């Protein structure tokens, strides 16, 4: 299991990647960081702690003495950007993992799906996206111009 501090670091990253906008909840409000943590930890046990260590290491370059979770949203964004610029496969896996699984958790069914029962409450994000969700078919498949 990842360290609680590592989970907090992931939550802080999710908060910067998909912030709340207007009356729409952000990724952290929907607990998307738990999806990110589960995915990274299953992909490679220990990966979450590694990601948190790197986030903290780059946070120091943005504000001396600060951990990643102590940074403002704007400062966290600068950390992510700096990490994206590294030409290193492991670093790219960390950044890609944070972004891909945050977006994945936010815009897939994850926040409204109960795997045990199969019950689906369509996520609010789908309304904003105009996504139909699972469908038996679309008889009116051509949009009027």
């Amino acid at each position, binding site marked *: 299991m990842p360290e609680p501090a590592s989970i907090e670091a992931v939550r802080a990253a999710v908060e910067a990647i998909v*912030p709340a906008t207007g009356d729409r909840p952000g990724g952290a409000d929907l607990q998307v960081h738990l999806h990110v943590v589960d995915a990274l930890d299953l992909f490679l046990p220990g990966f979450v702690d590694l990601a948190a260590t790197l986030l903290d290491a780059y946070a120091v370059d943005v504000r001396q003495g600060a951990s990643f979770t102590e940074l403002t949203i704007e400062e966290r964004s600068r950390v992510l950007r700096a990490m994206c610029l590294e030409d290193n496969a492991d670093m790219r896996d960390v950044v890609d993992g944070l*972004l891909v699984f945050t977006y994945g958790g936010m815009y897939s069914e994850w926040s409204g799906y109960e795997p045990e029962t199969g019950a689906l409450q369509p996520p609010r*994000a789908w309304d904003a996206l105009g996504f139909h969700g699972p*469908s038996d078919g679309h008889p009116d498949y051509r949009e009027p111009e």
Partner: protein
Amino acid sequence: MKRPDVIVVGAGAGGPVVAKELAERQVKVLVLEAGPWLDPDVDFTRLEDDMGSIVDGRLRWGPTDRSRSPWMRRRDGVGLILQAAGVGGTTLHYNGISPRAYPSAIDADWPMSYEELIPYYERVEAFLPVRQVEEGDLATKDALFGMGCEKIGLSHSESKDVTTSVWRRCHNAILPVAKMSSGRPLRYPDVDGCTMSGHCLVGCRNPVGAPLERKAKRATNVTYVPAAVATGECEIVPNAFATALIHEPSGEGKARVRGVRWRDTESGETHEAEAAVVVLAGGSIESPRLYLNSDLPNEADAVGRYLTTHAQDLVTGFFDREVHPDVGQVSMARADFPGFGTLFTQGYGPQSFSVVLAGGGGGFWDEDPGDEPWDFAGRWWGPEAVTWIEQYHRSLSILVCTDDEEHPDNRVTLAGDWPVDEHGPVPRVAYRPTPRSKDRQDWLARKGAEILRAAGARRIHRANFPRALLTHLMGTMRMGRDPGGSVVGPTGEAHLVDGLYVGDSSILPNGLGGPNPTLTVQALATRTADQILAHLS
């Protein structure tokens, strides 16, 4: 099954073709599949993450028990590898697009002519079946694409054999669009055919209630597999991960294959079976891995080389009108540019869309694209990214498939510097596009942007993946006449291993010029089955 005549390793795009073709002619075939055997009506939830997550989705590359980690590959220059374990393999989540290769690509590098391949194409096209999307059946995204192509002067073609730049309605292994009307139940037999639900990528089970033979998307789990089993001569064993090819020396540095050892991924038990012929059909990563893990002759170090991928990328346009990229077959229109590659529409759900638009590209949205025809590229996050992702319903993405130049250093080897897994040394997958491939990819991305702009897109984004997206994996066990630069000969049998054939995409000598590889893999597998029959008799 009593001693089989042939063992096929892998039940993806190609393996079941070999199995069906042989079993229909009274050859006993045992098919080993590493992943599960899913029931579309029960297991295909049509949910993007539940089905498609590379970590724990039902269509991932990993064991049936989704609480266990996926099977690892050491990646070098590679970002994402999209392969599915399970009966049906990667056809479970392919688009169903089934074009033929460009004739120029076959005639340039293959040990056979395009003309020689045509009868095999025709057999597969008739069986699946493959049908061109009918005029008037294009979904909005595809109609927009076609309009853009017309406006930039591309002529329209109905042909399967492409020698010049054209746009076409896709030839898909998807049943024709069903007759549907609003308010009527979308259930078989009231509807028979494709219901345009947009679920090709996440595993389609529509029409609801249809038997396997009338499922719209013609993945091998609903076509070749049931046909092979129905002969009574073919047994499919899921959760069977092949770990070694059993062989013996046959003189002059060669070997003769005798059978296969596999591990039950659920019980952990090891099994073996013997057969006169073994067919590798585990895909372009696992086929060379199995060969290399079996200590078979590899004198020229040819095994695993010449991995090609189509150097894929995506460009996305945003329109002032509704597009709904989740509606329709995910790809219904394409443009072909022999010498460069191909472009086709790519519908998908919002998870994939958000990752393509903001999560995985190279560079950042706020960087000046200079003279390029897109407005922004790469990745982003924060409030602006959320705003653009919410434009999903007005977006159209085009997938770039490059005529990828083959190079010996793009290859699969064993990752000697990584821990082994329960199936032996794990594969290392190394790929970087050559400068020529990168130039072609850039050319195609610009052409895609031109089509989008002509169709009315007001803003255009390019993903510009910094590491390769691997969905079309080809080569690594390539066919050729020269044992120094290929692994199998023109019959599909390994140069150095008697009785060992290849029936998957690893046999392809090149990237076909850019078209999607599944149909060509299946045509070659049909041909290889004929060759095996001759071998056995």
